[in-house]
């Protein structure tokens, strides 16, 4: 058991960092990279991640050596069978090389189960001594703008057995306007509820395929928000993409280049809206580096950034607004990972139908990603189809809309329902 206080989420001095590394080294090798990376990049972690990591390490420190050995022996044995000690395996951080070696081991499935078992046991111990769970309401708002021709939101697949769709009686745009109003909007409501810690930007996320949501935020915003707009990130994204496209067809070389890109100074390319927001910049960098189309298609960025924000920050509010993507250009569309505006002289032409199909499944993916965490029990969701003039609600039983089915809901009613969800 270490004697220094382990929970110090604000910043890490050297002695705490060293103490934590000692704790991490008690774990089997394959569990060390992710934790070491968290300690190393502490300042870029969101408060939720810092709290979780600190509590995990505190829980770990409470294990006596023989107790920990009993818990981790099966994983140690598995690592021996995998011959992990002789791999090119980075203990400093997660890497593609690590992931690739693990994934092609015949013991991969077994290994995943063992890691999960050890992690859960330590986390359970940590939770026993910590005050954790927040019971505050959470809300996901998905906006499918006018430009996306959508007949029905659950048309592709229903999102949830509790879901219900209503017509909108009035202007569908009004819903987002009310939700983001500077004084009476939802970020302001969350800020007012956030004592004693004070409002945190990571509690409210606005993620936009274009640059529309910012125009709804009146300035100055009384409430801190994490605002990511794909259109505003274009200059940075283009620079970043051109470097990503230099990675060799070699996994170790790729790891090296990606590590360089993480530490590179991209200051000239960041939008003004992210000035001084190192943590959010780091988040965008990680979203872009982790693939999933975020560097290529704006809607993939919206989905993946929202899913990662939910995983890493456990926010109370996520507003995700999808948009249009261009059609792959004739002939050059095969090089889809390239910057099509640079590579082809043709004007962009939008693909509304394809974009709508993409947005519908990706919107559902945001909802599904939120279902993986305990906070899902307090999470409601609303998807606004501006072209279909409909809204799709999912809510815990106590917060379901009270309107009779079949009626059309007014934007003001919907706004009041959203406030109620955050109570």
């Amino acid at each position, binding site marked *: 058991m270490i004697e220094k206080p382990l929970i110090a989420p604000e910043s890490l001095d050297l002695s705490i960092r060293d103490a934590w590394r000692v704790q991490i080294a008690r774990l089997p090798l394959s569990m060390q990279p992710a934790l070491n990376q968290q300690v190393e990049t502490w300042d870029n972690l969101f408060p939720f991640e810092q709290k979780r990591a600190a509590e995990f390490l505190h829980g770990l420190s409470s294990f006596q050596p023989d107790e920990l050995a009993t818990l981790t022996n099966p994983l140690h044995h598995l690592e021996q069978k995998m011959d992990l000690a002789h791999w090119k395996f980075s203990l400093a951080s997660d890497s593609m090389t690590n992931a*690739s070696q693990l*994934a*092609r*081991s*015949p013991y*991969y*499935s077994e290994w*995943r189960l063992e890691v999960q078992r050890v992690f859960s046991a330590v986390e359970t111990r940590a939770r026993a001594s910590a005050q954790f769970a927040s019971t505050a309401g959470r809300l996901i708002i998905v906006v499918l703008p006018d430009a996306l021709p959508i007949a029905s939101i659950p048309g592709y*697949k229903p999102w949830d057995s509790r879901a219900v769709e209503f017509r909108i009686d009035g202007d569908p745009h009004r819903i987002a306007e009310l939700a983001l109003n500077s004084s009476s909007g939802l970020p302001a409501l969350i800020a007012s509820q956030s004592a004693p810690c004070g409002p945190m930007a990571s509690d409210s996320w606005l993620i936009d395929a274009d640059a529309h949501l910012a125009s709804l935020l009146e300035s100055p915003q009384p409430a801190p928000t994490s605002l990511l707009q794909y259109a505003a990130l274009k200059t940075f994204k283009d620079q970043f993409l051109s470097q990503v496209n230099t990675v060799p*067809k*070699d*996994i170790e070389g790729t790891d090296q280049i990606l590590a360089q890109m993480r530490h590179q100074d991209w200051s000239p390319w960041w939008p003004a809206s992210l000035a001084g927001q190192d943590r959010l910049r780091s988040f965008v960098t990680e979203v872009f580096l982790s*693939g*999933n*189309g*975020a560097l*290529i*298609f704006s*809607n*993939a960025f919206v*989905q*993946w950034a929202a*899913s990662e924000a939910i995983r890493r920050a456990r926010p109370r509010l996520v507003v995700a607004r999808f948009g249009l*993507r261009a059609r*792959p*250009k*004739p*002939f*050059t*569309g*095969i*090089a*889809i*990972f*390239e910057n099509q505006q*640079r*590579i*082809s*002289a*043709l004007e962009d032409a939008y*693909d509304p*139908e*394809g*974009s709508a*199909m*993409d947005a519908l*499944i*990706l919107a*559902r*993916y945001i909802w*599904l*990603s939120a*279902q*993986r965490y305990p906070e899902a029990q307090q999470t409601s969701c609303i998807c606004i189809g501006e072209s279909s003039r409909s809204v799709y609600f999912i809510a815990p039983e106590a917060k379901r809309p009270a309107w009779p089915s079949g009626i059309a809901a007014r934007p003001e009613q919907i706004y009041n329902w959203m406030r109620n969800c955050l109570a």
Partner: protein
Amino acid sequence: MTLTRRDLMKAVAAVVVEQWAGSRHLAFGEDRLNIRRKVVLITCGGMRREDTFAADGLANIPHLHTDLLSRAAFYPVVRNSGVTSHYNTISSIFTGTWQRLDDWGKSRPASPTLFEFLRKLSRLKSEDTWLISSNKALTSQIGASAVRDFGPSYGANVIFPKQLLINAVVRAAAQGRAVKGTDRTAVQPELISMLNSDNYDGLGWSISGDASSLDTPTLGIMQQAIADLIRTSDPVTGDEFTFLVSTEVMRRFAPSFLTITFSDMEVAHFGSYSLHLAGIRTVDRLVFELSKLIQELPAYKDKTTLFVLPEFGRDLDGSTTNGFFNHRQNSDSTRLTWMLCLGDAIRKPQTIEDPIEQIDLFPTIARLFELNTFDLPGKPIPGMWL
């Protein structure tokens, strides 16, 4: 067009080499065992059963479902029990053992490929076994194993037409020549120039046993396919070009064992579901056209068995691996897929519900070529004349 002295020399050299290749063909042809049957094996990236052979997916595969299924032996339960990456999966199909290699194709398969067995035991010529691939995750290493008694000298011709196309477009853009999509002919010189360059390593090609340059017949095939591509009014996709090169190889060499991998549907990695489905529809059309071509070409008609199968599915909606984007989840959505067989070797059109594994293809195809003695984990699939 002005013919420079160098062009003239090239033309003369081409004639000489062509004649030489022709004589070599005859010389080695005498030694060849009598192989009557032909096999075309098509693997096509990752697509989920729910997006293909399921109620909601049939609209994406009208040709497979409407035109081909009624003539096929259909295997609705085909399991990929290996590493669900492209290089490992395709290597496993080729070798009949689950391969666990570097995903990016740095190393050769650890056990001999069917290409090598066919070339060594059945004494097929180099132009009798081909892999033509759209998939940029593969490398030329996949055409032959690292096993000492086999290896590249018995390997397949491996070519990546899509990579050629992409490199030409990217190179043009990098040199400040943005491609005008309306004028396809603008790309043709770029492609020809790349074909005529000295080094194909960047394309990962391996022609006729690890040679570092394209021989004249192969160059001719590529040039013809490029010309066809420029003329066609169809949407240009990587798989379209792979298809054109494949048909040209079939016409010129009529290989006994031709494998093609399509990959347009892999745009799913970038998060566009609509483009992913469009990729599935392209493959559906190309497989149908290829099945028609097999019946049109005398070298293939009535003696060819066509196998079509996805490499794997894709991950479940809501998975931590981000659903359809990827194919690395240990779930039935990712591991279970299907296979359709047409032509010469099928006993009768039928659906065979018994589960099979992808590595069962090796002993099945080996038996079609009368190679029987292998100690491998897979077993020949039912429903075939073997």
